[in-house]
Structures are given as structure tokens and as C-alpha cells.
């Protein structure tokens, strides 16, 4: 790598919110290396070893550092593998929502006219449907499964992208460089892909980083309601749901650890997203 790149990296590093980025990288690495890090199989447990507390409490054992759940499965292993599922679901859903929403937003903003109206009405309709409720309905109908959840989540969150991208596209259309491209005789799709999209990309990234947090929390809610990631797959939302009686019963480790994991992940994304927003484009403070 040449010194140019190094300087670039160092400059970026000096500005990013370091803690958040480190936490996020750690979580991603954990997700990738789950097979090497976890001590036990996350899906199989011995019912006779159930509800053991974390190792530092009385009754705990160091083979199960963070304790076991109601089915005797190791909490730590489930947390580690769970990062994989949670991150996979969140990223996939956001990518799907992002692609779909950006595409529709570009179409609406660029072509205007009735294309714009139709897409916008559709977007409005989608935005006025209560997300979790619709998610519950679709999950109940489509049945359980990780990919079903991804599709449902992706299919519900695209509307915010469409709105934002459309707005940006509209303002881009009047800018000089786009007018120049038009005069130069560029085809429509070339203009969209080569000129408008790269400039819209910044907002899409910012929005995505903020949306991931929401998607993770919504997925946790759907799983809590029994219509999210199905057991026995380890997912943090599922661990919260399975262990929810534990809080009142004194089995705090069932919920505290996955809850903290979710909080860390979501907060890191939010901090990074917030920073991105301020760093990349002050125009978008009012997105909310």
C-alpha cells in the first residue's frame, strides 16, 4: 500500500468515533470466527445442566462462562453465534430495503410525472402501515424462517429510502453537472447510474447506518412476539424472548447479556450513523 493510502486511512481514523468503530469491528469479527471462538454447540444442550449461573457466581462453572439457559445451552456460545444471525439478518434486510428503496426513489425523482406520483403514493401507503403489525401478519402467513424475516424486514423499510433518494434526486436534477451531461447527449440510464447515484450514495449510507439499529430492534420485537427468527437458531432477540421470565425469577444472565449485546451493536451503529450524518452532509440533519 502506498503512503497516500496510509495517510488517507490515518486521517479518517483520526476523525471517526473510535469506540463505536472498534466495537462494531469486534462484533463483525466474532460473527465470522464464531466456529473458532465458541466453546459449545449453540443449539444442543443437556437439560440436566440448565439454568447454571455465570462462572463467577456460586453454582457456576468455567466450562459455561456466562451460564446456561433453560435448555442447558451455553449462553456465551449462543451469544457468539447469535452475532452472526443478528448481523446477517440486519445487513441483509437493510441491503434489500436500500436497493429497492433507492431504485424506486431514483425512478420517481428522475422521471417525475406520473411515475413519480404512482411510486410516491405507493410509498406513502407503505409508510402509513404500522411496521411491526404488518411484520407480524406477514410472518404469520409466510411462516417462520430466517430468510422470510429478512424479506419481511427488507420489504417494510424500503419506503424511507425511497423518500430520501427521491428528494435528493429532485435537487440533483437541477444541478449544473447533470444539465451538462444532458446537453452532452448522455442516455438517461447513464445519467442516473454514473452521475446521480454516486452523489445520492452518501445519504443512502448514512440512512442505512441509522436504519440498521431500527431493524435490529424490530427484529428483536418480532422474535419476542414469536414471529421472528425461529428456534433453535441462536439470535439475540430470541435469547431475550426465551429468557424473559428469567428477569423476575432471578436468572438475570439469560437477558442481561443478549440485551447488552444488542445495546452495544445498536449504539455503535447509531453513533457511527450520527457521525456520518454530520461528517458527510449537514443537509440531512432533519431526516430524523
Amino acid at each position: 500500500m502506498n503512503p497516500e493510502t496510509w495517510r488517507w486511512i490515518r486521517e479518517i481514523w483520526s476523525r471517526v468515533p473510535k469506540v463505536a468503530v472498534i466495537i462494531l469491528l469486534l462484533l463483525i469479527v466474532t460473527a465470522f470466527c464464531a466456529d473458532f471462538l465458541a466453546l459449545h454447540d449453540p443449539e444442543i444442550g443437556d437439560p440436566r445442566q440448565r439454568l447454571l449461573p455465570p462462572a463467577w457466581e456460586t453454582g457456576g462453572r468455567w466450562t459455561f462462562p456466562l451460564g446456561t439457559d433453560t435448555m442447558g445451552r451455553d449462553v456465551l456460545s449462543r451469544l457468539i453465534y447469535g452475532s452472526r444471525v443478528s448481523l446477517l439478518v440486519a445487513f441483509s434486510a437493510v441491503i434489500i430495503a436500500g436497493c429497492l428503496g433507492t431504485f424506486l426513489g431514483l425512478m420517481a425523482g428522475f422521471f417525475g410525472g406520473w411515475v413519480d406520483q404512482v411510486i410516491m403514493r405507493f410509498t406513502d401507503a407503505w409508510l402509513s402501515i404500522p411496521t411491526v403489525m404488518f411484520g407480524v401478519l406477514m410472518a404469520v402467513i409466510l411462516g417462520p424462517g430466517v430468510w422470510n424475516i429478512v424479506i419481511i424486514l427488507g420489504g417494510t423499510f424500503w419506503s424511507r429510502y425511497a423518500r430520501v433518494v427521491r428528494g435528493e434526486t429532485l435537487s440533483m436534477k437541477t444541478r449544473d453537472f447533470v444539465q451538462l451531461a444532458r446537453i452532452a447527449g448522455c442516455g438517461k440510464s447513464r445519467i442516473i447510474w454514473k452521475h446521480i447515484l454516486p452523489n445520492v450514495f452518501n445519504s443512502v449510507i448514512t440512512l442505512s447506518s441509522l436504519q440498521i439499529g431500527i431493524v435490529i430492534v424490530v427484529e428483536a420485537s418480532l422474535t419476542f412476539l414469536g414471529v421472528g427468527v425461529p428456534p433453535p437458531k441462536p439470535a439475540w432477540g430470541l435469547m431475550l424472548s426465551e429468557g424473559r421470565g428469567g428477569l423476575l425469577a432471578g436468572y438475570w444472565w439469560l437477558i442481561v447479556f443478549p440485551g447488552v449485546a444488542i445495546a452495544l451493536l445498536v449504539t455503535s451503529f447509531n453513533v457511527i450513523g450520527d457521525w456520518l450524518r454530520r461528517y458527510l452532509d449537514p443537509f440531512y440533519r432533519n431526516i430524523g
Partner: protein
Amino acid sequence: MKRYIIRRFIFGIVVVWIVSVMIFLATRIGPDPALMIASPGADEAELNSIRDRFGLNEPLPVQYYIFIKKALRADFGESIYYGLPVADIVWQRLPATLMLVGTAKLISLGFGILAGVLAARRRTGWTNNFLRWFSFLGLSMPNFWIAMLLILIFSVKLKLLPTGGYGTFWHLLMPAFSLGWYFSAGYTRLTESSLLQVLNSEYIKLCRVKGLTELSVVGKHGLKNALIPVVTLAGMNVVLMISGAVAVEMVFAWPGLGLLMYHGAIYRDFNVVQAVILFISVFMVFMNLAVDILYAYLDPRIRYD
């Protein structure tokens, strides 16, 4: 101005129509609801009589037509599970949801705006930091988890508040807080940036020059203008709040629309599900309409969108 209102209104109708089609189709895919009510091993004749009772034997477009016709008369059919007209059940549960969402909104706006104002005024001090972190924390925890923590602390350990159910102001407190905390972060950030922008504007400088008191400048003129985008965001967030209420209602057994819809989905009581989602969507569409019109009234530039 009038043209703008009419255009927006027509758009609203179109959106409602699209929602009705989507909801209708969504509830019609999937297994036959008649199987849920009939006894196991019921023969085809019995299943058919159940289907007749709920009009399930007609072709889809006919069913949709009947559905829309009845809906316009506020007749949403009968609940397969509860055996009562859906409109009655929804009406019964509506006040609970309104109370919950309304109070949650107030709480989230209260905290959020307060924190944002303090942040904008650059007050360093424990109040400011605490409120800021409080808002951020609310973003990262699922509301049902917060709900259970609250029950653990305030109901079981401290014995101060009732656990669940509906009835008094005290029953409302924990559910509203669990629901609202999440949203206060957005309001904090927005209030802060918006207030900063407004306070640096020419208009405020003019107010100061005129010699108005600081309270009047910041409180009356500054805040009033700064809060416009916050109110807009609050409006957009209502639908998120209503949908987030499902999990909270489940934990507290709060008898609102969220729980009703969830139960309906599980039991394939599609009349109920349709009615609840449609009702909420229509409410949202017309609320956005009202906000849009208000905005256009306040800021004439928007009318030419």
C-alpha cells in the same frame, strides 16, 4: 392554496385505497381460517358452512368489493374468534391505544425537547449529559425489555406500581414510558440542531436588537420556530409508535389495538387484522394530510411542490 388541499386530499384517498388492497390481499394468502374454528376432523360440509358464514367461498374480487362496500359503512364484518362485530371490538379497544400512544408521545417529546434545548444552550453539567445519554440509551433497548425491567424494579421489588392491566393513571405510567423512551433521542437531536439554526438566524438577532428579554427570545420566538420540524417528526413517528405498542401491550396486558391485532394474526381472524391495520393507516394518512396542509399554510414555498 385550495388546489393544494384538494390535490393532497385526492392523494390521500388513493393511498388509502392502495393500503386497503394490500391488506386485503395479505390476509387472504395462507391457510384457510375455517380450519381454526372447526373441531378437528370436521368434514368438508361443516368447513363449508363456516366459510359461508364469513363469505370465504366467493371469488377474491367479489370478496374485496363486499369488503370495501361494508367498510364504507363502518361495518368490518364479524370477528371469527370473538363472535362480535369487529367495529365494536375496535371501538372498545381504541381509547386504550390512544391513551398509551398519546402519553408516550408526551413523555418522549418532554424529555427530548428538554434535552435538546439544554444541549443547544451548551450547558455543560450533569443534567445535560444525563439527559443526552438517557435519550441514546433508549434507542438501543427493545421496548419490551425496558418494560420488563420496569416491572421488575417498580412492581416487584419496590411495590410502587401495578404490574399490568388497565384502569388508573398508575397502570399507564410504565407502558407509556417503555414505549416513549425510544423516540426521545430523535427529538433531542432534532431540537438541538433546529434550535441552533434558528438562534443564529437573522430573525432572532432582530428580536435581540429590539430589546426583548432573553426568555422571550429563546422561549417564545426561537423555540416556536425550532419546534416545527420536531412536530413534523412527531407526526411521522406516530405510526412507529403504534406499531411498537404491540410488544408493550403484550407485556403489560394493555388492552389496546396492538394486542388485538396480534391475537387476530395468530388466530387468522382476518376481519380483525384488516380492520385494525386499515383503521390505523387511514388515521395516519389523514394526520399526515393535516400536517402537510398546516406546513403549507405556514410556509408558502411548499405549496408549489
